[in-house]
């Protein structure tokens, strides 16, 4: 299982300057942290990898099948994507909202009836399944969004800033859920909270101004660039400042 990106270029307007340029990126099973400041291109990259945004140039392949090619349908269902903000209808009950998301993703109803209660259990929302979505806290909403990302039992899981806006307890809970996920999936976790990435990921990709600045194991990244305190945050700042290449 692998996801390969070649010569990717994304622009916001036709003929405009590229906001994202990735020459090559190989994603293997395991958790990869995608970090960068606001506007670095993280969400654009994740949306492109998720199959939601066709790139202006380049290819994304999953096990050699082009995501934006003629066989798209065979691979797009293998991707789970948790957007930065998922606003499911507030008046829906949590169980119904998950069933709706499952239907949107094209999962057969019979399969979702079996899987959905397990998914809610997995993200810790089983007791809230009859609550309305509008009644959920921020942390619960993010967990519901994670459950939505998992409805297809994906081989590629893309999480866009899953812990943003959560208090420390909720962040820890969500980190625990992500850490418990099956390690055979390619998981990309976008964040600008270095602490989260350092705790969950084994590999780190630094994106700055739409370009890759670093791609490698997180331990080496912190050891080499983290200064005397071996700080992940310091390593990140040093990388984007260009002081260490």
């Amino acid at each position, binding site marked *: 299982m692998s996801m390969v990106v070649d010569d990717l270029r994304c622009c916001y307007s036709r003929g405009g300057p590229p906001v994202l340029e990735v020459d090559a990126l190989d994603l293997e099973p395991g958790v990869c942290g995608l970090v960068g400041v606001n506007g670095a291109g993280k969400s654009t990259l994740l*949306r492109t990898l*998720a*199959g*939601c*945004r066709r790139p202006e140039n380049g290819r994304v392949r999953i096990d050699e099948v082009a995501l934006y090619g003629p066989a798209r*349908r065979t691979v*797009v*269902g293998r*991707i789970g*994507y948790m*957007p*930065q*903000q*998922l*606003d*499911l*209808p507030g*008046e*829906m*009950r949590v169980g*119904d909202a998950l*069933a*709706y*998301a499952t*239907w*949107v*993703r*094209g999962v057969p109803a019979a399969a979702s009836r079996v899987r959905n209660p397990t998914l809610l259990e997995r993200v810790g929302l089983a007791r809230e399944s009859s609550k309305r979505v509008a009644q959920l806290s921020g942390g619960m909403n993010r967990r519901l969004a994670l459950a*939505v990302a998992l409805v297809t039992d994906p081989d590629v899981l893309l999480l866009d800033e899953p812990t943003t806006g959560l208090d420390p307890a909720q962040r820890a809970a969500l980190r625990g859920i992500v850490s418990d996920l099956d390690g055979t999936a390619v998981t990309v976790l976008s964040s600008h909270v270095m602490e989260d990435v350092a705790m969950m990921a084994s590999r780190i990709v630094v994106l700055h101004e739409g370009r890759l600045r670093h791609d490698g194991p997180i331990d080496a990244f912190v050891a080499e660039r983290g200064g005397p305190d071996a700080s992940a945050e310091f390593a990140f700042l040093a990388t984007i400042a260009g002081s260490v290449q």
Partner: protein
Amino acid sequence: MRLTGPSWAWLGGPRSILLQAVALTAAGVLWLSPRFSSWIGSWKQALDLAAGSTGFIGPFAAGAACLAYARLRRSAVTELMAQGRHDLRVWVRPAVAVWSLACAALLTVALGATTLASLGGVPSYWGSVWILLPALVVVGAQTAIGAAIGFRSGRTWTAPMAVAGVYSVSLLMSSGVVPEVSTPGASPAPSAGSVSSPARSGHRRWPAWASPSSCWPPLTHRWPGRPGPVGSSSSPGVPLSSPGG
């Protein structure tokens, strides 16, 4: 009927959906009531004017569709839809749901009006019921316009504008300013099998769903051989049956 399934996801909760159904029906009743004297004595005229209640039901349906699609656009569910495997069905479901509510309202109004006319002792002409079909198509088109406005803008406040816009376009069509495809007004009299106005035959270049005179309550027309004023039917064509049915 479950009002929590995928079709109803963006129309609000069950209470809101019922409210919309009541509002659409009320719009149809509002359309018919000023013309009470013109249809109470004629089954065909009642059916004809009920079909013309698209004049009020359609703009309301456009507003509801606009609201639903604006909500959908603002949520990140469109990202999930872009990933889905049965694309078109997912996108059109909310519009189909609004349309079905509007159809139910139109049929309820038609049933109510013709039943009241029947209670007055006039004979029924069930063979003319087909004239409701083009009216349902018109409502579908008006709903689609509202949906497009809502999705394009992504703003819920455009819903009243969609209502006003669709109604205005219908008025413009009925007054001949723009080509007439759908107008607020009754279906052509010949379709209803009621009567035609020989004096106006052949004057219209575009298919007529209604006459301008049917847009406002003051009813001035007198059809040949009719005891009371009628205000809706004025299109060219050959009568399917004699007046007064």
